[in-house]
């Protein structure tokens, strides 16, 4: 279908004889309209859907964030930027932002590095290559709730697998939930388990597009494998690395299910909020207690801005640090 769009031969549609009967002229006009407007109509479904389910909620969230809007009591009063002012002073919000950033860094940095190494290994000639390549994405297609339950058991404080192993070799058990860093580590581990293979596969796809003769001439010049990796592979897949970093930033900042399952399904995120993320705090404020939609909307909007800022920072940093081909 798409191949016929706009491919109407001009000789047939254009320049009818001036004495043409009325219906010929009308079809000529329709033909012009077709050429002019139908491409927009074809893409319209996406934009209509995006407008209804994407843009409108985002803009409406901005609107709601300007109100003192509590569903339980039914108050809805215009409050200007009051919600944002309160947010700036809300220690729990900054704690959640701190946790989110911590978990994000702790998960994304090792995840992308390991994915890059993994992709490099999978890019070699070996036996059962397809099987291995497919194998690394299996964690990604498991349900995140199931992952959460299993890892919550592995990292359980008293009867967990890891603490049991530590006990058998004489170490003290780790307080996987009460210790902030331990809880971040466990959550980051969960995230990495699911997403490393996915990113590796994306890197692999990019690596396969690199012409082989580049490596051949490099090895003729005596470059080591390591040197080839850093000087050929990484710069040439730079756009892909940028893509994965942006996607990881968007996903990482919205992390919700993993810490929720890890904390026994409570949005509190540990007895002292030590692993409550922003998404969990938004949920806590918006959908439990007083259902403070205004406050929750202000937080959601701020999270949106944070994601954009961080994505841009990452974009600039990566562009600077990884030297690409100069175009």
């Amino acid at each position, binding site marked *: 279908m798409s191949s016929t769009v706009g491919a109407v031969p001009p000789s047939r549609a254009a320049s009818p004889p001036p004495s043409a009967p009325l219906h010929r002229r009308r079809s000529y006009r329709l033909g012009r309209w077709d050429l002019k407007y139908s491409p927009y109509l074809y893409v319209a479904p996406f934009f209509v*859907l995006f407008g209804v389910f994407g843009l409108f909620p985002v803009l409406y969230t901005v609107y709601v964030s300007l109100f003192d809007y509590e569903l339980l009591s039914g108050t809805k009063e215009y409050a200007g930027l009051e919600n944002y002012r309160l947010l700036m002073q809300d220690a729990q919000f900054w704690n959640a932002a701190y946790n989110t950033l911590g978990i994000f860094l702790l998960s994304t940095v090792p995840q992308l590095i390991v994915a890059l190494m993994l992709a490099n290994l999978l890019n070699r000639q070996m036996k059962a290559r397809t099987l291995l390549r497919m194998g690394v994405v299996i964690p990604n297609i498991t349900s995140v709730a199931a992952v959460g339950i299993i890892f919550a058991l592995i990292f359980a404080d*008293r009867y967990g697998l890891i603490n049991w192993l530590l006990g058998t070799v004489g170490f003290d058990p780790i307080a996987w939930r009460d210790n902030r860093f331990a809880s971040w580590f466990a959550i980051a581990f969960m995230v990495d388990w699911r997403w490393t293979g996915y990113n590796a596969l994306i890197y692999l796809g990019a690596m396969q597009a690199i012409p082989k003769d580049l490596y051949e001439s490099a090895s003729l010049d005596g470059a080591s494998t390591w040197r080839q990796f850093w000087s050929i592979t990484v710069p040439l897949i730079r756009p892909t690395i940028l893509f994965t970093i942006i996607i990881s930033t968007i996903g990482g900042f919205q992390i919700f299910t993993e810490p929720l399952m890890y904390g026994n399904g409570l949005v*509190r995120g540990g007895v002292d909020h030590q692993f409550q993320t922003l998404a969990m705090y938004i949920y*806590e404020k918006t959908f439990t207690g007083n259902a403070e939609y205004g406050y929750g909307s202000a937080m959601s909007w701020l999270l949106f801005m944070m994601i954009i800022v961080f994505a841009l920072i990452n974009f600039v940093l990566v562009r600077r640090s990884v030297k690409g081909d100069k175009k």
Partner: protein
Amino acid sequence: MSVMRRRLRIAAAAVLAAGVALGSAGCSKKNDDEGSTGEGGQVKLVLQTFQNFGYDQAIKDFEAAHPNIKVEHQKMGELRDFQPKLVQWLAAGSGAGDVVGLEEGVLLGYVQNPDKFANLLDLGAGEVKANFPEWKWNNALTPDGKKLIGLGTDVGGLAMCYRKDLFQQAGLPTDRDEVSKRMTTWQDYIALGKEFKASGKVKAAWLDSATSLMQPYVMQNSQTFFFDKDNKFIGDTNPVIKQTWDLGLQMARDGLTAKTQRWSADWDGAFKNSAFATLPCPAWMTEGVIAPKSGPANSGKWDIANIPGGGGNWGGSYLAVPAQTKHPKEAYELAKYLTSKEGHLAAFKEAGAMPSDIAGLDDPAFKDKTSEYFSGAPTGKIFGESVKNMKPVFLGAKHQQVWETIFEPQMQAAERGRLSADAAWTKAVDEAKKATS
């Protein structure tokens, strides 16, 4: 050919775009036939409940007795899925059923903002007041006593579940009457725990967590909990709360608690590993939680004694009539029937829900119930007594929020040594003040 094709294409695109617009508009259409009056004066009522209220048979009986009323029962899944939807429907003024199920904590939240619900006293609910235990009735009443927003469905009751086999190993009595006698007060209960521990023959702790003491102890010893009747937070000044907090944490320091967090993977593991010997348990927890978590291997090792201090309750629900209903009278009739003795007993038969209706509690169908898993304990009698013996306590709109999301976790932090007892207390009070201001 090309003109024809092009015309078709334009038409198709237009239809597609219109379809998208219509489709999204269609999403907002819901329940618009709700509350409609059909031919012959037939009234259709929508009943919305969560989990399993066990009302299938009771609704059939109600419809048979009221041929002009048709009931559509919408089972809304888990409470956490239903609750946010209900909040939205009530705020939007449409979408909520004519009768809705409210869990106790949710109901308490609405007692402070009752204008979304019909006043059941205006609909004649005063006639059934004597059917319910006073505390169950009072929970649904606004502080000024002028508006009632719900009628009680099930209750939880409270008893002390204990491990007979561990008691025996430690040289304690195992017979449930004997055990009940040895722990009539909480002080007795703690003393017995020390004896259990001092025997040196058991590895298990006495209680699952220090926090388990809090709810029953405060409810038995105070007329208020975290809030006074004006819904002002008094958790920091109510002496019984601090007293219970200290008592529980002292038990933890004496090594009497297993320091496990309720509903966590470790709590599940503690059941399987027999890590504690006693647990205050409501009726729904016996067959629904303890039996499956302890597993068939521990069948017949658990038994049930009376709760120290005399009575208690944990959990339970209500039926309310949202103010947006078009048929308040018929909706009240339905709620009244479902919370009558007949409705309660039908729900007990179908879903094991413990009645809150006094006559229902005394009915042999409930009272003679025993539990095989718990060594044949007369659960109907034990739990029934605990509900009837309970004194009314004013809980306040945000009771559940303050307990479950603030005091309980802070007490756990103190119990496990993440914070000192004083630091945790200060934090809990600060957080609660912030959440309730």
